[in-house]
Structure formats: C-alpha cells, structure tokens
C-alpha cells in the first residue's frame, strides 16, 4: 500500500518535473515586449523614433484617457450630476484641439523625415550582395565574385514543423529560425542588399537590423545596413510577406563577422567555387 503510494508519488513527481522541464528548454518569451534596439546604425535611429512616438502617444493617452475617466467618474447621474444642456459648442476649444495635435505632428514628422532621408542614402557602400527570394528559400550572391548559394530552413526545424510531427519544438535549437547556410557579412562595413524575387513577392526582414524590404519579381529593391564593429554574432529574421504554403518556413540568418574573419571566409568560399568549377573538367580529362 505504502509502496503504491510512494510509487505513484514518484510518478507524479516525474510528471511534474517533466512539465516544468519542457518549457524550461525553450527560452521564455514573457519579457519580449518591445522592438529590439538592434545592432546597426539605422536600427538604433529607428528604435529611437519608435520610442519617441510611443512616449508622445503615452502623453496624449494620459490626457485623453484622463479626461474620459474624469468625465465618467465625476458626472454620474447616480452621484446627482445634472446635465448642462447649454454646453454644446466652443469655437475656442475646437481651435485649440485642432492646433495642438498639428503642432505635435510637426514635432514627430521632422525627426522621422530626417531618419528616412538617412535610410534612403545608399551611397558609399563597400559590399553588395544580391538577395533573390524563391518559394521558399533565399539565394545570396556576392556581386563581383562567383560566390553564390542558397539558404534554406535547417533540417531539424524542417522535420519538427511537419503536421503532428511528434517532435517538441522546444527541443529544437532555434526552431524555425535556423538555416543551413547563413548570409555572412562583415561588421563595421556599409553593406548594400539588392533584393528581388523569382516567383512571388517575399520580404527580407531581420528585426535587429531595423529594416525590411520587399523582394518583388521583376523589380530590384535596394537596402543597406552597417552593423556596429563590435556587434559580431548571429542575427535571425523571417520572410515577412505572405508567399504561399511555406511562408512561415523561410528564415533568414546573418552571420556578422569581423572584417578579417569575413575576408578569410570569402577567400575560402572563392577557392571552393574555383575548385568546384575545376573538378568536373579534371574528371572529364581523366576519363
């Protein structure tokens, strides 16, 4: 009897532990409430703008919601409030609450326009990469070299994302945000992306870079970013424009390396391309 209780007790403890452990695998998301500051020159400006408008909205909200709550609390019939039916119009008040919002809008628009002008200034870029979107993968071509490759959803995520796969996404590292071949860029360098698509419209978005740009078949869009020199690392994003069945399964991963590491990487890739190009012809001569 006691043994059964002990046994069921152990089983219960095991279940509880399993339940506690399962979510513990995955990173908790409760703290993710705001836009990332990001790691590029532009992402910080964009974050700054976002916070500026947010605080303006909070300030306006305090006034407007304060007024609403005050009216609801102070003028209740149950508290004996008597309506002042003569209060129907005030040109002065109406001019004030038209002009003040206009002034606030100007205060918002000026810095926004400045940042926008910076964003559109794609001069003096040092490295250009052509990004071509396909259903459902990305292709990266380093212009001026023969280095070009596809980047698709990593195998582990791909197995787990099947309908009723039986694989717990929490056990997959970077579920749905991992690829086989990440884009590699140097830190501290102004990188230009030429974004286009082969089939339908996609959108290239890495939140830490502050920007997204639509990839449109038949058109080439331009965007740029300059990751801070000390912010090397791996950054993740996703396709942001509905592009069919596997829209949710074409992530973007960017490896940001120091300039030296990047140069070494690019040299190695170039050599690999040369070798691959040479390989078939050699084998042809032998046979």
């Amino acid at each position, binding site marked *: 009897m006691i043994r059964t209780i002990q046994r069921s007790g152990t089983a219960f403890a095991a279940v509880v532990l399993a339940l506690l452990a399962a979510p513990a695998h995955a990173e908790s*998301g409760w703290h993710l409430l705001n836009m990332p500051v990001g790691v590029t020159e532009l992402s910080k400006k964009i974050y700054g703008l976002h916070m500026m408008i947010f605080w303006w909205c909070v300030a306006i909200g305090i006034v407007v919601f304060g007024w609403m709550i005050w009216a609801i609390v102070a*003028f209740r019939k149950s508290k004996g409030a008597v309506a002042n039916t003569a209060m129907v119009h005030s040109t002065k008040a109406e001019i004030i*609450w038209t002009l003040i919002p206009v002034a606030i809008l100007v205060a918002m628009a000026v810095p926004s326009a400045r940042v926008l002008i910076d964003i559109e200034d794609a001069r003096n870029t040092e490295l250009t990469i052509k990004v071509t979107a396909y259903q459902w993968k990305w292709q990266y071509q380093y212009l001026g070299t023969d280095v070009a490759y596809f980047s698709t959803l990593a195998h582990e995520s791909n197995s787990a994302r099947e309908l009723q796969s039986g694989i717990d996404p929490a056990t997959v590292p970077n579920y749905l945000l991992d690829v086989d071949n990440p884009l590699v860029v140097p830190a501290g360098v102004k990188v230009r992306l030429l974004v286009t698509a082969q089939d339908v419209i996609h959108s290239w978005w890495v939140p830490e870079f502050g920007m997204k740009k639509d990839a449109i078949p038949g058109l080439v869009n331009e965007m740029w970013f300059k990751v801070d020199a000390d912010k090397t690392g791996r950054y993740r994003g996703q396709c942001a424009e509905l592009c069919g069945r596997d829209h949710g399964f074409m992530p973007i991963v960017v490896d940001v390396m120091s300039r030296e590491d990047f140069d070494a990487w690019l040299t190695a890739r170039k050599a690999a391309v040369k070798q691959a190009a040479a390989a078939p012809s050699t084998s042809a001569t032998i046979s």
Partner: protein
Amino acid sequence: MATHAHTDAVHDDHDHKPHGWRRWVFSTNHKDIGTMYLVFACTMFFVGGTMALIIRAELFEPGLQFVDPQFFNSMTAMHALVMIFGAIMPAWVGLANWLIPMQIGAPDMALPRLNNLSFWILPFAFMLLLGTLFVPGGAPAGGWTMYPPLALQAGDSFPMMIFAIHLMGASSILGAINVVVTVMNMRAPGMNLLKMPLFVWTWLITAYLLVAVMPVLAGAVTMLLTDHYFGTSFFAASGGGDPVMFQHIFWFFGHPEVYIMILPAFGVVSEIIPTFSRKPLFGYESMVYATAAIGFLSFIVWAHHMFTVGMPLAGQLFFMLATMLISVPTGVKIFNWCATMTRGSLTFEPPMLFALAFLFLFTIGGFSGLMLAIVPADFQYQDSYFVVAHFHYVLVPGSLFAIVGAVYYWLPKWVGRMYDQKLAKVHFWLSAIFVNVLFFPQHFLGLAGMPRRIPDYATQFADWNMVSSIGAFGFGFSQLLLPYIIIKCVKSGAPAPARAWDSAHGLEWELPSPAPFHSWETPPSAAVIARGAEH
C-alpha cells in the same frame, strides 16, 4: 393612448404585409430588408469567427497540431473576406436600412426594389465564396489582399472568389446609391442637412466612398482574372506589367474601405453618448466637417499600406504626412465625445458601455495607427503582428462594438420590447476584457519580430500567443450571448415605450415602439422635427 397606437400599427401590418416566405424574398420594406441584412451579418460573423478560432487554435502552441499550412493560409484569407464583406459591411447596411428612413422622416428607402436586389445578391456571393472551401486546390490562400503573383497560384477557387467579389461590390454599390438617393430626396420638409443625425451624415459620406471605390476593386480583380486566363500581363513583370501596380490599385480601394467600416461607427457613438450623458452632442458641425475631412483624406493615404515595396523618398514623405494628418479630424471627434460627457449626467446602460469601450479602445488603435504612419518605424512594423493588433483594435472594439452598441440602443425601438440589460452587461464585460486579452499581446509579438500570416512560430513567441488564443476563445464564445439576448427579447421582453431611453433624441424616438411597418407615412410636423433635431 400608446396601447391604442400599438394595436393600430399591428392592424396596419395585416393590411399591407405579405406573409410567409414571400414577405422576405419579395420584400421591399426597409425594416424587413434591414433585418435580413443584420441576420445575414450575424451569421457571417459566426462563420468568420469560427475561422478565426481555427487560426488561434493552431497558434496556441508552436508546432503544427491541427491544419496544413495551405489550409491555414486559406483561413486567414477567408476570415478577412467573410468578416469585412460578410459581417461588418452588411451589418452597417442593415442598420442604415432600419434607421435612415426613421431618422429623416421618410416612409421607406427611396429605391425599395433596388434595396431587395442589393440584399439578395449577398447570399449568392457568399455561396460562391464559401463554396471555394470544397473545390480542388482549396479556398483562396493568398490573403484577402490578393497580391499577384501569389494570388494567381490558385486552383478552381480563383474565378469563384473574383465573381464573389464582383457580386459583393455590386451589392454594396446598389446599397450605397440607395442611401444617397434616400438622404438627398426623402428628408421630411424642414429636415435640412445640418439637422440630420450624425448616423445619417456618416452614412451619407460612407455611401459616397463606396460608390467611388468599389468599382476600383472590381477593376483590379478583373485585371487579375484576365492575367490568369486571357494572357494579359497587367501585373506580370515578364510581360511588361508591374506587380506593385496591383497594390496601388488595391489600396486605393482598400484605404477608403477602412473608413467605410468605421465612419458609421462614429455616427452611432455620436448618437449613444449624448443620450446617456443627457446632453446634446458637443460640436455637431465640427463632427460633420471632421467626417468629411476623413473621407477626403482617405483617398490620398493608400500607399502607407505598402511602404516596404520601394517607393521614391518624396512619395514616402507625402504618404507619411498625409496619413499623420488623419489624426487631426479623428482627434477632434474624440475630444468632442469627451466634451459631450463633460458636465453631463451619465448612466451606463449596455449601449453606453459599448460606446465607452469604443472610445477607449479605438483610441488605442489610433495610437498604433499614428506609430505605423512613421515610415522608418513602419519598416519594422510592416507585415508583423503589430499591424494585426492595430487593425483588429480599430475593427473589433471599433466597428464591431459600435454595431453591437447600436443593436442594444435601437433594439427596443425595432421590436417594441426591452432586452435583458443585466445579461447584456455580462456580454459587454466579457467582450471588453477578452478583446484585450486577445489583441493586446499581439503588439508585443509584432514588436518582438513575429511576422503575420504564419501558421507556426519560433518558441520565444509561444507565451504571448497562448495568451492571445485564450482571449480569442473567451471572446468568441461570449459573442453567443448576443443572438441569445436578441431572441429572448423578441420572444419575451417587457414592452418598451416609444422613447426607450429617457433622454433619447431623434425622429425615430417619436414613432411608437415597435416602429410601424411604413415609418413616416405622413411627414413629421415642424415641431416634432425641432424636438428630434436637438442633437
């Protein structure tokens, strides 16, 4: 006396009203057609709501548990089409039918047979649209925005969707023409334009927007159709066309469409708040001008839906500034409603509760709208859950709450009985709480980087998605109270007086409850109009 009038009205009914199915199928009566519109909208609301719950069930946890991604995409596209064209818009046309003749002192709508036609097109349009769920290739899965080239990758559903949209468009145009003609020609003598209730004003402007933009949508989808079947390449770059042009044309329709769904809500709130504040609407004329300004601005802001397609700097700046400008007339409205409540004598019956929730939550949607107007920040927000949160805040606690508030406000007038106000308050509190549990976390998800229209997500988005899904089920199931309360009211509500709310103004409250079959067979007298027009 009141009882006598009541029996007279019933007697009238027997004289003029056809019976059985003929009464509805051949109806030319604005009230019966209005009822059919509202019943249709309510049905579609639950159809679209079921689709939303399928979406939220799949998004409850990471991983794919229930549906294939293709079907998930069909659900997002169909949920939007059904809710916009099947629930919100027909609900507004239904309310316009019921209220406009009563509010302007007319016996009926100006074009009653057209009215019948515009309603009866809708069930066929939705048979076509919902029928796509059963055809090879499944329902449309390219989003309700139908962007090519993706929209062209569809099976047999493609022409069905396009013809359904043509039918809905035709229905909306006919309905809108009827509203314009009625308001312009059927007003009682002495009811000049600036005496009209704001609901009539907002609908008049909405009707002009509808007539202006529904043909644009029809043109856009027809071009899609010929691109697909007849070898044209309006939107195919390989044939010299431009996929972005579709987005420009679509949103030239799409942005006024947003205001088509919200302007009548402004009208409803402008009727409810004065009644329960026991005070005339503050700044009536500025309300009218603000509505007209919003209607005008709605035509010059469309490209803010597509800032990431790559536009010239000047274009981006123009659309940013024009969009920000909309917050000025919208702000005027919010301030006027606040001023209406100030120094009033407030009570909190169900219609007032819904109007107040509208005031608070629509303002939140307005704030996120202002944030979205800022182009650089929009480069982050665009196509993320932040956008989903934004437009659901303006459409659910915005348009939908105003529609529900309108039903609770005028229901006693329509059926002559009062509904269970306690239960309606329960409906309100459940709706108001769950709508925030449902949509507020979506702001966080979008800012943290979750794109919209994805069936599965990275694990860091799991927590807030679960909260959102719980809110969705709570909100969805609490809406079942609405038809229950209405049916209970129709069957066994206590009789309601002609002026169901003690300080309600407007010509509709001068008619007996329930309102007679033919609203104003003789125009109201100047004295009645003067009493009714104390806004």
